[in-house]
């Protein structure tokens, strides 16, 4: 079904070499080991200011689930009463937060935040979720080191196939 590629030439010669600049424009993903994190830094206090201005309208004043209220965006901070899956109780890596916010948020202006702003927002959300202190500076070195308790819960799918219900 899948075509045999045996008769293909070593190269078809279609496409162009991508330059370092071509790659830099679009390559800003972040791995858990910190690979990809840019220069810059930020703290919770400045993060809170940005949060209130750019995020609170959709995620709520403090990012927590409000019973009976459906906000445009999901809660980001774990509350004692809330049942939602949040950064606080369900995210295994802090690097994912930088990566996701940088590429998609705020929802109405994706890709508009500077690296410093994203570091600050990460610091704010991580401290609101009580993973770091109010004063911890988030940057390329510190962010990957933040320990997220949910991490231990995550297991890879180990189903082997065949007739197992697992």
């Amino acid at each position, binding site marked *: 079904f899948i075509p045999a590629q045996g008769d293909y030439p070593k190269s078809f010669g279609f496409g162009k070499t991508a330059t370092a600049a*071509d790659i830099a424009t679009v390559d800003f993903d972040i791995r858990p080991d910190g690979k990809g994190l840019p220069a810059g830094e930020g703290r919770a206090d400045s993060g809170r200011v940005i949060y209130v201005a750019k995020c609170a309208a959709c995620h709520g004043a403090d990012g927590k689930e409000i019973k009976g209220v459906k906000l445009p965006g999901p809660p980001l901070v774990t509350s004692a009463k809330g049942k939602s899956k949040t950064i606080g109780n369900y995210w295994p890596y802090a690097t994912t937060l930088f990566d996701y916010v940088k590429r998609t948020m705020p929802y109405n202006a994706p890709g508009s935040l500077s690296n410093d702003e994203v570091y600050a927002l990460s610091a704010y959300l991580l401290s609101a979720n009580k993973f770091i202190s109010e004063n911890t500076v988030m940057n390329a070195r510190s962010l990957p080191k933040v320990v997220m308790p949910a991490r231990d819960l995550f297991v890879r799918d180990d189903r082997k196939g065949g007739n197992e219900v697992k």
Partner: protein
Amino acid sequence: AAVLPVASSFTGLVQEEVPPVAPADPTKVQGIPPGKIGTRSPFENPARKASDISSRSPLQDFYSTITPSDLHFERHHAGIPNIDPEKYELLIHGMVDRPMKFSLADLKRFPAFTRTCFIECAGNFRRGKAEMTPQEILGLTSQSEWTGVMLSTLLREVGVHPKAKWFLAEGGDAALLTRSIPIEKAWDDAIIAYGQNGEAIRPAQGYPARLLLPGWEGNTNVKWLRRIEISDQPYFTREETSKYTYPVNGKIRMFSFEMDARSIITYPSYPQQVQRGWIEIRGIAWSGRGKVTKVEVSTDAGKTWNDANLQEPVLSKAHTYFRHLWQWNGAETEILSRVTDETGYIQPTLKQLVDARGADIGGYHMNPITSWIIKRNGQVLFKPEKYK
């Protein structure tokens, strides 16, 4: 009498559009002429059921397994981007000998490959009340005839490092959606698809090009694909941690790629009304692991099972239409279907799933057998089972 050609009133080349009211006798009036683009009958109005983030295919309206492209289910994370095909580029970089970028025209010049397969959102399965249609229960799956270039063909072109284990696929929408995919899938059957059901892929399905991972959860089939980065490890992106993971006995299971086999009876189903006598029970079955080998139908609430007929050709990782002839005696009963795939996997009951994964089960990768209750008056109702 006129001998010169008269202006004929039936030569308009307008786009055809059948008016919503039929004439008393359609054999006595000329119909509308041929046109550039056809339309549906005004008496047929299939439609997706849409929320602000997704829309569901009307499974109960389909007679076979190709989903008309304009009725393909949707799940977008930032709406449908409007991409100029002339500006489109796919970048492949990371652990490669030579990072490269390909225009859409480049992609189309490579050897092409066509495959009919389903796509299904890993979150497909809603329940909760009796008045639910197949579209509402399971409408986040559709099937198309996809055409594109095998990802492996492109990887041969860039040269992949021997230590590569994963690749990151990134979409060009405002969500810049990313997923980490084991590199084996690239060498196996991953496609960069630019064709859908014969024509260019539709914007809602990833125009001008998307990643197609036959049998794997919908979200990994990254639409509007703009970048592939070859890596030695996964990225743990938001879509593979905060989303598309699910509780299993106190843990959270991640990287469930293959869609487990499932089936659903689409006729009869809510809100259809059936009559006593012969009924052809119809539905679709599929598996992310290969071919459907058997669909069994029970008309007595699961006490006994009958092999349904499978519509040929049965394709791998594809919606497979099944049919089973049944004579209904008018008594209240429960009808259900269960699929077996070529790996020997048998679609489980909800109870089996709960027993295996714990009471906290839910969210993604839920593929239980679903039942319809047929009332004595012919009414058909979904049977939502309790499990929490």
